[in-house]
């Protein structure tokens, strides 16, 4: 595990999502995962996808239950709302507080970030309250011999593909914010903090791209497949 981390430090944000902690001595990936009750294959699939945008883990991840995936997505949300977003927010505010920007420019950046945060949290809350529970219920119903007719009725009016249509790409706005800082705002005095903000933003953008890929390319197709199966077995022919 030591080599994984030293060679790919960009994987560190994944650790809290799996409740993995440092200080693992000479243990291998498998041993560390075992200590923390994490499926090592699942961790590795997620890590590979995280490192390589082009790696579509659809096949590898189809081995794992939707529940496992939903749990991972929920802990990623938690990472965003509790760590990543507040972290970059604090840095942006501190950067603005100690800058020589005009009032207007400061208000623009603050207003932009506040609105972004609202959108972001609304998006996550929609997933947490409706989409993820729906997926869990879908998997539960599929495992039953005879699915609940009420659920089947619901299934006919709503499918995951609707959700996919609404799936905003949250990373674009963050890229706009970086561009604004790099190209259009007057330079900040605190260069180090400014660089940290830009680094945080670009790390968050990459994370969000990975997250959206996971949802759109892995989760949604599998849920759609399950929906279809369930509808077909409930209404054969």
């Amino acid at each position, binding site marked *: 595990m030591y080599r994984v981390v030293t060679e790919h430090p960009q994987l560190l944000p994944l650790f809290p999502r799996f409740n993995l902690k440092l200080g693992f001595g000479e243990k291998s990936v498998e041993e560390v995962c075992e200590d923390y009750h994490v499926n090592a294959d699942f961790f590795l699939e997620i890590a590979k996808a995280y490192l390589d945008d082009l790696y579509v883990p659809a096949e590898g991840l189809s081995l794992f239950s939707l529940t496992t995936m939903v749990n991972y997505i929920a802990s990623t949300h938690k990472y965003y709302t509790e760590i990543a977003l507040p972290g970059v927010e604090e840095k942006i505010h501190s950067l603005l507080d100690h800058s020589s920007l005009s009032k207007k420019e400061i208000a*623009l950046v*603050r207003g932009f970030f506040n609105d972004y945060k609202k*959108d972001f949290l609304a998006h996550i809350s929609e997933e947490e309250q409706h989409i993820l529970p729906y997926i869990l219920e879908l998997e539960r119903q599929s495992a039953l011999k005879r699915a609940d007719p009420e659920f089947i009725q619901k299934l006919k009016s709503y499918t995951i593909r609707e959700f996919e249509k609404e799936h905003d790409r949250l990373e674009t*706005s963050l890229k*706009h914010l970086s561009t*604004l800082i790099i*190209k259009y705002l007057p330079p900040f005095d605190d260069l180090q903090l400014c660089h940290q903000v830009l680094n945080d933003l670009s790390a968050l953008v990459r994370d969000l791209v990975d997250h959206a890929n996971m949802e759109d390319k892995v989760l949604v197709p599998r849920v759609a497949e399950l929906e279809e199966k369930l509808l077909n077995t409930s209404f054969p022919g």
Partner: protein
Amino acid sequence: MKKSGFILVIDSYLVRKGMVSLLNHLQGISILQEFHNTESLASYLLKQSVDFIIISQSLFKASADLFISDPALLEKIVLLKDGDSGKKKEGESASQVHASIHLSEEKEKIVGKIQALLDQGKFKNRDLAPAELSPRETTIVRLVSMGLTNRQIADNLFLSAHTVMTHRKNISSKLGIKSVSGLTVYAIVNNIITIEEVTSLPAE
């Protein structure tokens, strides 16, 4: 100046590395990715915007259906030909590609061709307002960023308030941006408005 993004899709290791070395000597080029086959090319192109694709003839033929259906993509293709240059027997699709380079060509000729591509590119993407918004919509984004209300925009453009609302809705759904602050920053980073022209303080 904005660099032009190239990707190389070349099966031969030596040719690919040779091309990389040549491109690295030129200004204004960034090599985004190298591929030795076309396996992950389609998914890459979905995610990443590129300006030019240098691709060997055989790989181009093998993945022709990826390109033929998409004229915008064809325009980015620079075909790397290795066959007999005497016989000008090109496939139909090949005649629509942007440019071609033959393996037997000398350095100066290849550099000249690439330079010509870059010059054309300069006129094409000047970082102006993206094509996704209509001119009318772009105007409205500009006025919104200047702090005008829908009513004021309507008066300004001799439109009904209802029409302005419709435009606003279309803009939001096209860009996925709803808030005024979001549109303002969008307008700045897309050169629709300068930061000096932004007059209003977005509502807190």
